[in-house]
């Protein structure tokens, strides 16, 4: 038994089982966000991949890896996007170090 099953990605629609109206609204939003707009579909796929790595969703990582490839990105570009997202995540942790500095300064002479 493991918690993530590859086949479950194709079963995403089953989430509609108990709240179909909410899932329908979610899917409309989700699809619309990926349509060509002020950003290209390729840019959106790279953002999706970067976010997927950041939130560590294996389904999203697979989906947006394929989406990035199918929108013409290469692994150099995709890896840069993943590094940026990870660096921001790292930076977000590190900036909290200032909280520690502040706490230290407060109690120190």
């Amino acid at each position: 038994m493991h918690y993530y099953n590859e086949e479950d990605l194709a079963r995403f629609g089953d989430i509609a089982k108990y709240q179909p109206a909410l899932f329908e609204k979610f899917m409309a939003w989700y699809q619309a966000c990926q349509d060509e707009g002020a950003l290209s579909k390729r840019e959106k796929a790279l953002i999706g991949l970067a976010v997927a790595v950041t939130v560590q969703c294996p389904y999203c990582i697979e989906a947006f890896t394929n989406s990035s490839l199918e929108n013409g990105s290469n692994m150099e570009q995709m890896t840069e996007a993943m590094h940026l997202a990870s660096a921001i995540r790292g930076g977000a942790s590190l900036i909290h170090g200032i909280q520690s500095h502040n706490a230290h300064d407060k109690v120190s002479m």
Partner: protein
Amino acid sequence: METGVQITRETVARRGADPSFTDRLDTPDLRSIDIRTLQVNVGKLCNQACKHCHVDASPIRTEIMGRNVIDACLSVLDTHRIPILDITGGAPELIPDFRYFVTEAKKIGTEVIVRHNLTVTFELGQGDLPDFFAANRVALVSSLPYFLQRETDSQRGTGVFEKSVSALRRLNAVGYGTTEDLTLDLVYNPVGAYLPPEQSAMETDFKRELVTRYGIVFNNLFTITNMPIARFDEWLYRSGNRERYMQKLRSAFNPDTVGGLMCRDMVSVDWQGRLFDCDFNQMLGLPLERGRPQTIFKFEKDVLIGRAIATAEHCFGCTAGAGSSCGGAVVN
């Protein structure tokens, strides 16, 4: 050890007719509406052995077209005034009568397209190919799956990218891509089990990257879907991707592509002179509709037009997304 050819035959036997494709059409079947292109596959001999090749072509293949079949093709082009001859292979330049075929076709006023793999120009005795092509005003369609070395070599073999770049520079030097009647089109294939990107966006990238990195120019980029046939099909099975790839093709079925499918206005000829609806059906051994001429020697244009095109599950490869043909995407 199994060869790709054996696997292809087994695959056809296993699949049989696939009603699921025709079920998706608005009409009971798919029919030919004209014959504007005679696409001639002159054989399976090639200097490369690409991983995605639906022909299973390689340097060890011996099936090549003889002069008698070529003469029959020329006679058909002349008699029936078919405007376009599309020569493919393998590497068509490697057959002994390739240059005869091209020059004779040009004499009768046919537009000649050659599917040229670029690297063949570095084979013994082929160094003057750019000059030969230019002198005969041959339109070239050449595969370059990506503008980076790793992706290209991964699909087409180690060292192919570097040779391809050199060959493209030679073609530019004789006027291809820069002169109005010397057309150089490139072909993008996905390097794996996924669909091609949107064609015009990819063309913009290719043009920018090739001119910036290597000083190369070309006319159009065609994005072509990999077909689940022969060597690519074998790879799909081996890598565990086949089921999902076929599901992806089926899910991406686009009814708007059906009107522009290449099989509707062409006939494909194999190295022995047998006729097929397209090069893919040729490789799968799917014959033309019964009761129609089956060889180039018995070609009758009026009897071939209107035939029901043989379809199977690989046809989803031509109808997925923006569609796929020898001229790239079918719809915008």
